[in-house]
């Protein structure tokens, strides 16, 4: 166990050490590859800038999280609703499935130029695209889940006197939970990526993506790396908090986790 952890950390440690040394000795261009220590100190600077009233880093991050929060929630709710509808009705499925398959193959950022025309720069465009990017994977997985419901379980509920609505709530929804989580998980990555990427091109002046992009255009590599580090960290934390936690309390406890096979 301990040996495993050590082995796992080793390559990362060597990589970071190698990077640090190469940057310090200028074997690589430190402007393009600032040393990890420089990135960390830049991160601290960004955090401290504007303190005590307004930490710049925190402000950017909160702006992005707010956009993600709204977009993601709307996307998940709408996605589950639409997915249940498509899963229960064959005609609805056959009509919307092709549309969803094609639309979900369009990366969120590609929609940015069009939505900028429609909704302008800033929050409306960013939030809408975040919601859309979350929506599609959630619909897709929920539909798959609902359509795969064990018919015997539906029958069992029916004969015990459950009404159609009760059957949906007490059989279809929990049965699909494993699939829905998979969709929500994918929806979170897609939503997060889209919000950040759309902030690259459509944010007016705040957001983590805006901060990264502003620095990219001015070749301020340390800010770029620091921003990306924050972005990745937040994603991992959200994933743990929102998904793994809920999973542990539900499908893992029900012994349904084997259905989690990702496609």
């Amino acid at each position: 166990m301990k040996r495993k952890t050590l082995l796992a950390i080793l390559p990362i440690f060597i990589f970071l050490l190698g990077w640090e040394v190469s940057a310090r000795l200028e074997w690589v261009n430190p402007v393009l590859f600032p040393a990890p220590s420089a990135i960390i100190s830049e991160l601290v600077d960004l955090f401290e800038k504007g303190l005590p009233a307004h930490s710049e880093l925190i402000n950017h991050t909160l702006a992005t999280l707010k956009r993600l929060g709204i977009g993601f929630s709307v996307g998940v709710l709408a996605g589950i609703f639409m997915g249940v509808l498509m899963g229960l009705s064959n005609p609805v499925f056959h009509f919307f499935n092709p549309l969803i398959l094609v639309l979900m193959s369009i990366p969120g950022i590609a929609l940015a130029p069009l939505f900028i025309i429609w909704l302008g720069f800033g929050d409306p465009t960013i939030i809408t695209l975040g919601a859309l990017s979350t929506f599609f994977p959630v619909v897709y997985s929920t539909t798959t889940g609902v359509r795969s419901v064990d018919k015997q379980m539906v029958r069992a509920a029916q004969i015990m006197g459950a009404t159609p609505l009760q059957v949906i709530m007490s059989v279809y929804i929990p049965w699909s939970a494993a699939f829905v989580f998979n969709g929500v998980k994918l929806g979170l990555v897609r939503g997060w990526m889209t919000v950040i990427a759309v902030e690259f091109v459509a944010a007016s002046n705040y957001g983590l993506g805006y901060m990264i992009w502003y620095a990219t255009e001015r070749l301020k590599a340390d800010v770029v790396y620091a921003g990306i580090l924050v972005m990745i960290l937040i994603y991992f934390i959200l994933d743990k908090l929102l998904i793994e936690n809920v999973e542990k309390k539900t499908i893992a406890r029900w012994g349904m986790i084997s259905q989690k096979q990702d496609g």
Partner: protein
Amino acid sequence: MSEQKQKPSGLSSRLKNTLDFLFPFLVIGILWEILVRTGVIQLHSLPAPSTLLVKFWELAFVNGILWKHLFSSLYRLFAGYLLAVFIGTAIGALLAQNQVAHDMFEPTLNLLMSVPTIAWIPIFLITLGLGDKTVIMAIFTSSFFAITYNTMRGIEMIDKSIVNAAHLMGLRGLHLFLEVLLPASMLSIINGLRLAIGYAWRALVGGELLAAMIEWGLGKMVYQARYFNDASVMLLGLLIIGFTGYLLDRVFLTILERNTVEKWGMAVKK
């Protein structure tokens, strides 16, 4: 043999499936056209499907710009993706041979695999410049980890008796890899390839859109139209991005699946 018997009905059912697939697009197209013609929708930013068709005709057959966009995109995609396929499967196979190597790199791979692809693009824009190199590298990076990881897992999960049987028959090295390990882990590898093509597609379009020196590509086509406020080019570009992305998964991976794991009875047909 049985495949030949099924062919005529298979072809007509495939045609029917294609038509079923396109039907909703047709319905929405017609509805939309009616709404525009009757003046319910009167927006420059939401042109009618007939306008899109005219635009399509112009871009595809009058000046041919569309193909140039499409082919530059596909060229970048395959350059980055195929590189990731070859290097990824090779490294995945090597890591699977050795417990220490596995323990060393498995967590890192797992971590890097789940890094949102968009994170790589600014890094490569800074370090590799604003052109092709950046986009191809972003495609490579976003697909590489998924392929490596799934190859490694696939080979590790092979039934030991199969490997032992191969050893007994004297298979070693590259032969062992190509003739036994690769086919036996195909299910997992295809899983990785499927994940990776999705990541690659997103990295490609995002990269093209964001890399300033790139002139051609579907992502650029959509982005450039912004300067002319040309919604019809954007919509057209988006539709092509959607369909191409979908078909890449459908056609390319389904063909691979049909000729490998399905033929060998390793996967249940969906």
